[in-house]
């Protein structure tokens, strides 16, 4: 990356074949000088797990998270919600070598296993929040900490949310105490295209790399509606209207398409084509067009979501999930058909006009239409109680006569969320071979009185309500917050 700054200005905004060819000589020089960059195209995904492509470990900013070794754990006689829609009573869960080994009854404990008697308690997969700004907007929420919106230009696909993550954010352990084992940290919604999001394991680290979910795809944060047009409209800059928003997305995708064409031509060995000059913004957008980076689109109104789907069709990319989507219930049938998830609050509403039609049954109606429903937080407060948010959505479903139960509702926080992050084959379910990301609850997790008792991430005990040694403290906590001053909290 270091060579990018040496690039002459006239090659800085490489946008098309003509331009690329003009700058080709320079690029060749640079590639020769830095042989490792010959496979620069692989950098689009950062840490792809695809065969034949640069391995995760060698990609820049790759995950350095390696779960420490831990003894096997056998949780016995619990009520287990598997995340696959099943509820098992008096069931055992065996964890070993960082993975779920088995879920069943009367499982045999390996000799060195820790036995957890869990009669009367419940076990679920670790909760996953697909929409968080922890680390980017840490506590205290002072200007010195405000690192979530690069609101200096409406398209900032070049920025990566992970490069703002402060691992000492005291909100992170609080989320862990709420059972959150995986979270996606996204840029804010000031911009049309805010930048790349990152999926983290909720483990302590000295850098964001220590927390990155190994092999998770990158994401792209996009935002509809009021926020971008308000932020830029106030400066008498574009966009100031919803139509300005749409023009902004389309112009970006046109440039991305051209860049991708150049890139593909070069990769396929087309005569005369050289590698396009590196461009952080276009690399990210081209990654989306190649399906390697997943689009997470902040969008409230039904009509705007339908327009966003049309833009995705025009330029040939997929939207993985609409976030907030307070009007998802108005287009639940379309979301089901298109295979787009809706990441939702249980009952937030009214804080702005585009959130005025939110209803408590939003999650239930999306679920009923057969679409992928997710309950998210976007909040350092609610991330501590995602289970309660899902419980309220479940209540609203039952109030309208739907026959959903806890086994269905846990999917909104686990399997469905994992799918939207592209890690649904690794976490979000209690099934053999899945990461041992597990929460032991004091009771039914959908009860207001239940709390997380223990939380394991990759089989490692990271939180225990029974043992203060397993209440992680950040540097910020030390000597400042009640927990960091040794107060006994109830």
């Amino acid at each position, binding site marked *: 990356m270091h060579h990018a700054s040496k690039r002459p200005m006239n090659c800085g905004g490489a946008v098309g074949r003509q331009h690329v060819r003009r700058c080709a000589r320079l690029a060749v020089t640079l590639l020769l000088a830095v042989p490792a960059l010959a496979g620069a195209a692989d950098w689009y995904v950062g840490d792809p797990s695809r065969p034949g492509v640069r391995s995760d470990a060698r990609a820049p900013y790759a995950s350095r998270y390696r779960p420490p070794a831990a003894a096997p754990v056998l949780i016995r006689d619990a009520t287990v919600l598997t995340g696959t829609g099943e509820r098992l009573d008096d069931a055992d869960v065996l964890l070993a070598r960082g993975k779920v080994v088995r879920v069943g009854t009367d499982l045999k404990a390996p000799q060195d296993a820790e036995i957890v008697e869990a009669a009367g308690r419940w076990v679920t997969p670790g909760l996953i929040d697909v929409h968080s700004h922890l680390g980017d907007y840490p*506590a*205290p*929420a*002072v200007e010195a900490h405000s690192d979530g919106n690069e609101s200096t230009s409406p398209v900032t696909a070049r920025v990566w949310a992970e490069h703002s993550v402060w691992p000492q954010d*005291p*909100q992170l352990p*609080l989320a862990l105490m709420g059972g959150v084992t995986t979270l996606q940290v996204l840029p804010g919604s000031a911009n049309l295209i805010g930048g790349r999001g990152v999926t983290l394991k909720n483990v302590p680290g000295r850098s964001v790399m220590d927390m990155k979910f190994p092999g998770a795809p990158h994401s792209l944060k996009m935002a509809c509606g*009021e926020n971008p047009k308000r932020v830029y409209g106030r400066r008498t800059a574009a966009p100031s209207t919803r139509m300005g928003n749409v023009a902004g997305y389309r112009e970006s995708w046109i440039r991305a398409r051209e860049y991708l064409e150049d890139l593909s031509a070069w990769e396929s060995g087309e005569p005369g084509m050289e590698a396009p000059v590196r461009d952080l913004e276009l690399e990210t957008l081209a990654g989306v067009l190649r399906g390697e980076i997943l689009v997470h689109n902040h969008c409230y109104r039904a009509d705007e979501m339908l327009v966003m789907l049309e833009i995705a069709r025009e330029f040939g990319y997929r939207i993985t999930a609409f976030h907030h989507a307070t009007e998802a*219930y*108005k*287009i*639940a*049938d379309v979301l089901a058909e298109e295979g787009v998830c809706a990441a939702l609050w249980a*009952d*937030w*509403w*009214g*804080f*702005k*006009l585009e959130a*005025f*039609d*939110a*209803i*408590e*049954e939003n999650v239930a*109606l999306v679920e009923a239409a057969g679409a992928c429903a997710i309950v998210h937080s976007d909040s*350092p*407060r609610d991330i*501590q*109680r995602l289970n*309660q948010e899902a*419980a*309220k959505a*479940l*209540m*609203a479903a*039952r*109030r*309208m006569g739907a026959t959903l139960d806890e086994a269905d509702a846990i999917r909104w926080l686990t399997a469905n969320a994992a799918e939207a992050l592209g890690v649904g084959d690794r976490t979000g379910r209690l099934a053999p071979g899945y990461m041992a990301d597990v929460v032991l609850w004091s009771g039914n997790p*959908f*009860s*207001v*009185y*239940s*709390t997380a008792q223990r939380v394991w991430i990759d089989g490692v005990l990271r939180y225990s309500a029974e043992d203060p040694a397993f209440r992680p403290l950040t540097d*910020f906590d030390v000597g*400042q*917050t*009640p927990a960091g001053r040794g*107060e006994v*909290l*109830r």
Partner: protein
Amino acid sequence: MRRASWILLGLASLAMAAPLRAETLAITGARIHTLAGAGVVENGVILVEDGLISAVGADLPVPAEATVIDAAGRVVTPGLFAPFSSIGLREVSGVSETNDHLVTDAAAGAAFSVAAAVNAESVLFGVARVGGVTRALTAPAPGNSIFAGQASLLRLDGVRSPVFERDVALVAAVGEDGAGLAGGSRALALQSLTRAFEEAALYRESTPVRRRAQASSLDLPRQDLEALIAFSGSGRPLAVHANRASDILGAVRALRAMDLDPVIIGGAEAWRVADVLAEAGVPVILDPLANLPLSYDTLGGRLDNATLLHEAGVAVAFMEEAGHSVREIRQYAGNAVAHGLPWEVALAAITRTPAQIWGVDDRLGAIAPGMIADLVVWTGDPLELSTWAETVLVEGREIPMDSRQLRLRDRYRNPRALYDGPVDR
């Protein structure tokens, strides 16, 4: 003209007809949390006459003419009381035209009363009452002065005049917010609080002639001085936004020294000074979920704040400040229980205690003969997330379980049919 007045008279008598008929209503078979002398009544009966509770007990005969609400297997509580909000003053928070909760472009602090701004047609009321909330305090937010203005009490059943008790409290801010309004330092905010009442006293004792001369040398505008004078002798509480322990202490000491009755709003670090609050008899209206160190004033936030305060003898009530989500106060109460607060105290924190704090507990907040019949029939434990309100009564009348949100839900049960077919919209 004559015809018009006859029509008006007719309408008036129609409207009068209902209250004139002595209607008796009975709720039967429920587990009743009275929050009064009768405690918890199992399989009980509540009799309501003319909007008031006439009797409550286990073995009450139900009059033959009574309209009966069968609540067997259900739980009945008083209507929930949101102790501090801006409901009715802010329809859409992000649309400033619909916001009347703060004054930014005029020199009005203590004199500002929100009562005349309350939107009787607010969509928020229906959402709140379907969630079991029947009463709320609606309060101004600090805009130009450490004094935000005067708060009023609302009934949420959709009547033309929802304010049932106006200007029940004066709202002020110290701490981080107060510092910004007072000129930069929280110390100045506390000093301003004292000085304002001193100026008001000085002004009150002056002759009309001298007042005119004084007015130019005093910090506060005349209308605020007059509002403070009226407030000083009224015995009404002064609601003070304060989170940091030192600001809570400072405000309580300053106000008690002037014989005023503070109520702490926020109180994230109130647990640190619980003994002082208990001794001074100062209640705290708090958000039990506020455990985040989101500002340097709330570094001491914790989920068992209410528990520690209660154990020290401080009265606590639970608020959802914005107004759109006042229905969440029962979730807040449930969380307080999960972190050590006795269940009955948590229920009181969203019913009886708010009524006590705002001085209307002779009418509201409990189920006992003579009390206003604001009642909610719940499908189960009212603090539990799986529970919903099945029937809501305000002043003895069953309100329709209807809100704009529920109408949108029903409109979109089949979205395709709504737009594709010739259906009834």
